[in-house]
């Protein structure tokens, strides 16, 4: 499958389209609008970075796509179209079919995302038994092959090992292998390297990118780490308080962010080239999502805040491949 390059992506086929998704949690202390009107799309072969602080609703997006939102959570409105199919209204049986086979997920913590009581081989086999009609020999061969693909040597022996016999990095490789087993069209990676050692992070990221490319799959990379996204993703969608504040091609967004929040995220990445006395940070914390202020959600932390920001919520304005939701967007070259 040809790689989709965002630069010449005039109209490549869209694999996933999320339109105005609202996933709300109705708790006793109020409604948490974890995802509130989020739209984005993922093209075939593309890696889409979903960025935001913790509590920004990033993971909820992933679970919404898979239809795994439990009460008190509920997908209130919006459309989720995957491979031309409406997932939001798909039945439970159909969704179970899609999960794991068409859409796989890689979790944050490799220490807990494998069941400690089953061998790696059993856990891989379970996936294949569920989603393919291979016989035992074929399944075994496929498991060995995928484990080797993710760089685990003596794969046939390692199938008999338990998760605790692997190191953290190796476990994440296993998790990735399990995700790739049934050759999914889309992989949702939820902070896949956050729990890993920094030296391992780069290896795992490289591995994931190669796996995605080799399988012709697409990926949604959910992370708070802009550095990771800028390495990996073709497109970025920045979320703040459950809303898209900025989106566009990765290089473009990193080089010329429009939204002060994106700017803040970029500035808070340590850069060895610019030795600063103190790393820049975004002041304050994410507001209580049950008591969002009137107007822009970012107003209390924004260096560019004006009266308009406290009056009305900025709409998401698209210009070309980019979009931003800010009354006073940064112009090119502007720092703050």
């Amino acid at each position, binding site marked *: 499958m040809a790689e989709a390059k965002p630069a010449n992506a005039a109209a490549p086929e869209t694999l996933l389209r999320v339109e105005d998704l609202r996933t709300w949690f109705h708790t006793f202390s109020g409604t948490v609008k974890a995802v509130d009107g989020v739209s984005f799309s993922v093209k075939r072969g593309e890696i889409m970075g979903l960025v935001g602080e913790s509590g920004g609703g990033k993971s909820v997006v992933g679970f919404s796509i*898979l239809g*795994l939102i*439990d*009460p008190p959570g509920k997908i209130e409105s919006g459309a989720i179209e995957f491979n031309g199919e409406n997932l939001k209204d798909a039945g439970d049986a159909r*969704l*179970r*079919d*899609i*999960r*794991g*086979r068409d859409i*796989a*997920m890689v*979790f*944050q*913590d490799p220490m*807990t*995302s*494998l*069941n*400690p*009581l*089953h061998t790696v081989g059993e856990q891989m086999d*379970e*996936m294949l038994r*569920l*989603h393919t009609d291979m016989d035992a020999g074929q399944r075994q061969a496929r498991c060995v092959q995928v484990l080797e693909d993710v760089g685990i040597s003596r794969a046939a022996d390692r199938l008999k090992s338990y998760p605790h016999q692997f190191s953290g990095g190796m476990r994440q490789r296993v*998790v990735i292998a*399990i995700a790739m087993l049934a050759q999914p069209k889309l992989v949702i990676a939820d902070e896949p390297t956050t729990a890993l050692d920094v030296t391992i992070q780069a290896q795992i990221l490289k591995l994931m990118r190669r796996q995605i490319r080799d399988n012709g799959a697409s990926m949604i990379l959910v992370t708070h780490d802009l550095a990771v996204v800028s390495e990996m993703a073709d497109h970025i969608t920045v979320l703040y308080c459950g809303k898209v504040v900025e989106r566009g091609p990765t290089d473009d967004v990193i080089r010329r962010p429009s939204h002060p929040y994106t700017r803040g995220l970029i500035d808070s990445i340590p850069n060895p080239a610019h030795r600063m006395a103190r790393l820049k940070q975004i002041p304050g914390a994410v507001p209580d999502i049950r008591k969002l202020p009137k107007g822009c959600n970012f107003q209390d932390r924004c260096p560019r805040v004006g009266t308009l920001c406290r009056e009305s919520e900025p709409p998401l304005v698209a210009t070309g491949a980019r979009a931003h939701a800010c009354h006073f967007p940064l112009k090119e070259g502007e720092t703050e």
Partner: protein
Amino acid sequence: MSATFLSSEFFHNYKRNASAITGSIVLLVFTVIVVAGPLFVAQDPYDVGQLNLLDSYKPPVWLEGGDPRFLLGTDGQGRGVLAGILYGTRVSVMIGVTAMLMSCLIGTTAGLLAGFYGGRLDATIMRIADIQLSFPSMLIALFLMSAFGTGIDKVLIALTAVGWVVYARTVRGSTLSEVQKEYVQAARVAGLRDGKIIRRHVLPNVMTPLIVVATVQVGTFILIEASLSFLGVGVPITQPSLGLLIKNGFDVLFSGLWWTSVFPGLFIMALVFGINLFGDFLRDELNPRLK
């Protein structure tokens, strides 16, 4: 496999724990009694044809008038006390273990469902459990037995009705924390059905604390059954358990015929003592918080 067990931390601690060794020796003796008890006595105490009223109320063999055929003496029907105990232990242990298994099955299922699905189902199951826990278990068992009448099957039902709550609460708690773990999420994301996730992924991970609960509960159940039988609402007279033997002897206890009651009592004590010693050891070993 045995090599790994013998070199395991579990076995290492076991060797150094005198009460664990005592407990397991007692349990071993009782296992032999349960399995092979009738082989040790010539008389079948349930076979009326083998009973002779002339043998009634013989004292233990070391007292004056003792009969070497009846090591621990006889009761009013000429039934050997030892024979009664050996057969009665079987009944007691069988009831304790079966009721434990039944409670475990029902309680674990209820706890898994409550913890996994939460919401209204959880609230319903746990409120029933709370209500049940607000009554003494003996009271509930007594009430049920007086409603049902005597019989081993009814004792089992009464004990299960009392015992499932512990499992339900323990399992629900561990399930709640297991469900948060990513491998359960991963299983859902992989497209597994709920039933399979519960059986393959949650259940094995919540089993460990149950081993302790189950062990100690066998002891508790044996005692409750003994109490019920002593009060006359337990097992039928045709299948006397240790508790019923005590009751039968109790009528003549103060006439100096103490052996008919005291020996079954000592056996119950030893049995429950052994179970509890071993259960304490298991609790210390299997509970990571006490380590």
